[in-house]
């Protein structure tokens, strides 16, 4: 998409979502290359710091808290699992011994109970921490750039898949909203809202409501022109779609190779390369067949390069350190020793802090206020009064979206004809 709409006022729209997601993916990749708890904690801290420095007040920015709690739950779960199914735990200092539960022969290989050692608990906590940090990285990406904005950047050929994702993305929050509404409705009808009996009987109305909303969304998208297309030869369409899909698969496989050391020849790099080429070809071929244009695409500026680069430096340092055999990257629980901090890797991780200063601050409009969940399902929201009422004059201001220029016609001949477009917008109150 080389056509671009006017100029994006710097600072207003924040960093390109791709920049944030790349950076977060790199941080997650880095976390997956080490089991040193100090390094992991450092990565987590870096990510949280950047998020708190650069996140906005938009609703999706609150997802960080959810992911933090999820991470904590993962650690706890792993420790509990090790205690319960503790047989192949690491030998070492036994803290206590659970009674061994004999299982029938078909459950061979699984055992319940047995000795629980400090080593095995520590080991479980550390692997849990690793997973938790990866989750936090994902949460960071979510709260720094809304997933929807990332989808907007998808190339045209992937757009339809992207919309399927949009609908499913909206399904999850709808579900959460529906659960809240129905809980409240049950309470008002004198039904129990706690425990199992509260859960039972909620599933159907909740799903019904969420599905209904998704249907409404689908009809609205249809009415607003989603899915209009120019006729294209079916073969060409298959070809571009196939190339893109195959390429993506290769890239995914390659990334797996990069993350899990030694699983693929060449560390997975050749896979990524070949996949990327295929995707590129597929997208180029597919881009021609769509009639869709894009409004104010997010620009990819120096800042985006720098943010992405900082992420690459982090993951690069850890991969290189791993290949060079730097000691201390992997945590050893048996014998139990205090982890040491590999200085080089730690410095590398700290580079990941850079976006906290590089990335522009994003301000989504005026004061964002929280929704009040009423039993009806509509968030009741207080609006800044001026914003709501100050319309009358503006309404009189200009006549508008005027006689339709034919689609794709380059309306207006030059910069002189679009005075409005070049106005950057007033400062945020």
């Amino acid at each position: 998409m080389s056509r671009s709409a006017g100029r994006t006022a710097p600072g207003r729209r924040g960093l390109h979502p791709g920049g944030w997601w790349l950076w977060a993916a790199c941080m997650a990749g880095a976390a997956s290359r080490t089991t040193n708890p100090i390094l992991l904690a450092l990565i987590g801290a870096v990510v949280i710091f950047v998020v708190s420095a650069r996140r906005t007040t938009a609703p999706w920015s609150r997802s960080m808290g959810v992911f933090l709690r999820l991470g904590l739950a993962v650690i706890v779960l792993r420790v509990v699992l090790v205690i319960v199914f503790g047989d192949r735990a690491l030998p070492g200092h036994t803290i206590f011994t659970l009674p061994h539960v004999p299982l029938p022969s078909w459950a061979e290989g699984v055992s319940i109970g047995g000795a629980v050692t400090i080593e095995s608990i520590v080991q479980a906590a550390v692997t849990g921490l690793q997973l938790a940090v990866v989750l936090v990285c994902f949460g960071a990406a979510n709260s720094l750039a809304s997933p929807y904005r990332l989808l907007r950047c998808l190339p045209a050929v992937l757009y339809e898949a992207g919309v399927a994702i949009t609908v499913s993305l909206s399904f999850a929050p709808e579900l959460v909203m529906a659960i809240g509404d129905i809980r409240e409705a049950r309470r008002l009808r004198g039904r129990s809202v706690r425990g199992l009996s509260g859960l039972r009987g909620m599933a159907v109305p909740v799903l019904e409501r969420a599905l209904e909303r998704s249907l409404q969304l689908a009809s609205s998208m249809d009415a607003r022109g989603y899915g209009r297309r120019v006729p294209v030869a079916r073969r060409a369409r298959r070809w571009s779609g196939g190339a893109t899909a195959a390429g993506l698969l290769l890239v995914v496989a390659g990334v797996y190779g990069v993350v899990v050391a030694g699983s693929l020849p060449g560390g997975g790099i050749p896979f990524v390369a070949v996949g990327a080429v295929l995707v590129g070809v597929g997208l180029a071929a597919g881009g021609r067949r769509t009639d869709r244009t894009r409004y104010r695409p997010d620009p990819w500026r120096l800042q985006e390069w720098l943010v992405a680069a900082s992420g690459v430096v982090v993951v690069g340092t850890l991969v290189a350190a791993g290949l060079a055999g730097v000691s201390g990257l992997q945590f050893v629980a048996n014998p139990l020793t205090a982890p040491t901090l590999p200085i080089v890797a730690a410095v590398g991780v700290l580079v990941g802090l850079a976006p906290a200063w590089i990335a522009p601050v994003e301000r989504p409009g005026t004061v964002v206020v929280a929704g009040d969940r009423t039993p009806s399902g509509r968030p009741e929201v207080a609006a800044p009064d001026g914003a709501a009422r100050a319309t009358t004059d503006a309404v009189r201001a200009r006549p508008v979206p005027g006689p339709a220029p034919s689609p794709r016609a380059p309306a207006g001949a030059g910069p002189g004809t679009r005075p409005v477009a070049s106005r950057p917008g007033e400062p945020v109150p």
Partner: protein
Amino acid sequence: MIRFSDVSFTYDGADRPTLDRVDLSIGEGELCVVVGPTGSGKTTLLRAVNGLVPHFTGGRLSGDVLVDGRSTRDFPPRELADVVGMVGQDPAASFVTDVVEDELAYTMENLGLAPDVMRRRVEDTLDLLGLHELRYRPLGTLSGGQQQRVAIGAVLTASPRVLVLDEPTSALDPAAAEEVLASLTRLVHDLGLTVLLAEHRLERVLPFADSVVLVPGRGSSLVVGPAAEVMVDAPVAPPLVDLGRLCGWAPLPLSVRDARRLAGPLRDRLAEAVPPHAAPAPRGDVQARLEGVTVRYHEVTALDAVDLEVRPGEIVAVMGRNGSGKSTLLSQLAGARAPSAGRVDVGGDAPDRLAPKALVTRVGLVPQDAGILLYGDSVAEECTSADRDTGLAPGTTAAMLERVLPGLPPGRHPRDLSEGQRLALALAVVLAPTPPLLLLDEPTRGLDYPGKARLVHLLGELAADGHAVVMATHDVELVAQVATRAVVLAEGEVVADGPARDVVCHSPVFAPQVAKVLAPGPWLTVAEVRAALEPEAVRG
């Protein structure tokens, strides 16, 4: 611009057609209002304009719908997106993106407009609808009126020739509704846009209407014509039209201005009539009390140190613009959550501490979307499960339903009921345990005038029985008819609290139509005017 020729439409599984041999023609630049009782097929008619009916809903359509020369037979909704802009009942449910600006551009992106055209139209639309300050706001954080305007803007950017709106103002406070309607009239006058809209609150839209399509329902044929003519004997009529009929004014006035010019003699006659007497001051112990209640959500204060006492026999209307804290006030009385500060007391206890079973015998809340309280498969099942839940004698709820709205078919699925019937069922469920305090959130949304009249009658009875009623509403006509006391909230604070008559008469925003026409007289409703005139008619 829009032409229906011999259009019939039957939903799958329905035994009779929703639209029956409809012939209709709406010219360019017309603002046409579709009126009719609930369930008469207004929404179906609107959705047929851009082909959502039948392309999206299924069902059988015969005849032909032509929009700007294109038939919905050959063009599915997406291919009509550049001609017809459709705004549904619930704008929030139609948002595809998550930021105002992107939402405005969405349709244009699908139409494949050049980027500079898109940019210019977005800027123009932001100005046209006064959305400039909201451009980077996440959609989830907008108030109802703002959402409605964004939804309208989002279809306007594609510069359609026809705009179709389903109940564009029913969720809005009076001021926001006027704002949206003013924008619409401007579009009609400046751009020659054709607007087709359905609305129950006719008092709001009729003054702007060029023509009216009356959908009487039950297989009767459509009546189309200039607003003043069609309304003369329409089964649904706003107070102004009722007043006009009462006094035999012709042509029928549709705006307050026209009515005032005709009302001179009426005002003189009424000046000598006995003014309606004020509602008696309520007696009895306080039923519910808020003391310095403050509720905060994140950084927002939804209620700010609110004090309120409600006594038996009172019908308190809580008014105020969208987002002023009305719903929060009701949910506080229903104990949805503990207040951030202050104390809530309902019949001696804090409602948020009560177990659900105990709660329903003290407070009944019917939320804005009454359907959410219902999840049985039939009316009868709903009644028996309500008895079971609250430990009442079998048949109690069914008996209550008989009182609220007699003759509801017991085998009908709640989803297939009309808006008014659903409200009646929800009311019966809530009223069965006879809670002394009844809370209603926006009870007239989607109700037609007959439905509203039944509600008014029922509320009067309940109050006479000693129930205390608190209702949050934007419907000034409802307040005029039934409320004994009005409380106005702004930014979470109580800014006015007093007898309904005084509060609404003295506010240009909340005054009902009759009060505006007869000011400075103290008359609020057509019924009062009729009562005042009649003895005179007998004497004369």
